[in-house]
């Protein structure tokens, strides 16, 4: 008889939590591999040219980004296939670059406002005309420090 009574007084068994860390690990690894850090969604094609004599852009908080390139497939219908400027998340005209720089500069802390760099991330198929317009605008707002962002690689590959 005692055989059947035994279970009655046993307490509810605890849920085994030994596999919990594994689940957490799985999640951790998933996010570790999937996360890409980026600041704004690119709406333009952005294959940078190659260069060898490059310097690293240290200190991200001192950099203002300007993207230039052809609109990607989904924006092609609305914006055409000519190279366009992208500021933050929207397309812009060259004349808006100056205001954008001033606005971004105002957002930065006082002590950094004089040491800002403008990083030009330009598709290698873009024409120099649009770059010249940007450079002219940058000069107007006295943002003279620029960095032509490139990949590291043989510069002569740009010519093909």
């Amino acid at each position: 008889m005692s055989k059947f009574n035994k279970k009655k007084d046993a307490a509810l068994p605890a849920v085994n939590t030994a596999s919990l860390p594994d689940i957490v690990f799985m999640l951790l690894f998933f996010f570790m591999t999937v996360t890409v850090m980026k600041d704004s969604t690119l709406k333009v094609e952005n294959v940078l040219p190659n260069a060898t004599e490059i310097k690293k852009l240290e200190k991200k908080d001192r950099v203002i980004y300007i993207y230039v390139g052809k609109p990607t497939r989904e924006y092609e219908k609305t914006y055409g296939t000519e190279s366009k400027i992208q500021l933050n998340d929207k397309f812009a005209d060259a004349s808006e670059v100056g205001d954008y720089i001033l606005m971004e500069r105002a957002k930065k802390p006082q002590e950094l406002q004089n040491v800002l760099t403008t990083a030009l991330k330009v598709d290698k198929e873009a024409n120099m005309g649009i770059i010249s317009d940007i450079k002219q605008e940058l000069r107007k707002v006295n943002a003279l420090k620029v960095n032509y962002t490139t990949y590291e690689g043989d510069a002569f590959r740009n010519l093909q």
Partner: protein
Amino acid sequence: MPKRGAPPEVNAGSMADIAFLLLIFFLVTTTIETDAGLDRMLPPIEPPDTDVIIKQKNIFQVNLNRDGQLLADDELTNIKDLRAKAIAFLDNGGAPSGSADYCSYCKGKRDVSSSDSPAKAIISLKNDRETKYGTYITVQNELVGAYNDLRNREAQRLFKKDFTDMEAEYLNPETPDNVREELKEKVKRIQDLFPQKLSEAETSSN
């Protein structure tokens, strides 16, 4: 029949420690990818008060047309030869010995019809509105490369170290302050030997 107990519990208490250890390891070792590129300074928009007269022989004119063809000092040049040409121009040191501009460290041909000294030599880059950006970057890269080659040569001679390495170490925020102070002087000295005078004229539109 021997009495069987519940299967023995695996001790999972230390799992948390292992997880933390790994987490901290990754936290410390991950670096967020940084961008790199060619640093340039644009000329200020206000013209300087005094007009500086520059001798024609001290200007190295580089013209880049819409098809990516290159005209260096009025000669059609392959972009691959540009670096050598720019180095020859910068390193020329044409001023006669004894004059104020005499360049004692130059190893060039000392051609009187080319640049007087590296401090006087100016490279002027002009491009068309239709020029491809990729081509423009290649030319910029070669010109900056010419300066870097010369600076490396001088840095090797004076400090037995490459200028580009010294500069990268100087700009790296992880370098301790006392090392940076020391490097600052050396970098400045080399930069003064071959000052980067690369002018970007406004583009022609035709």
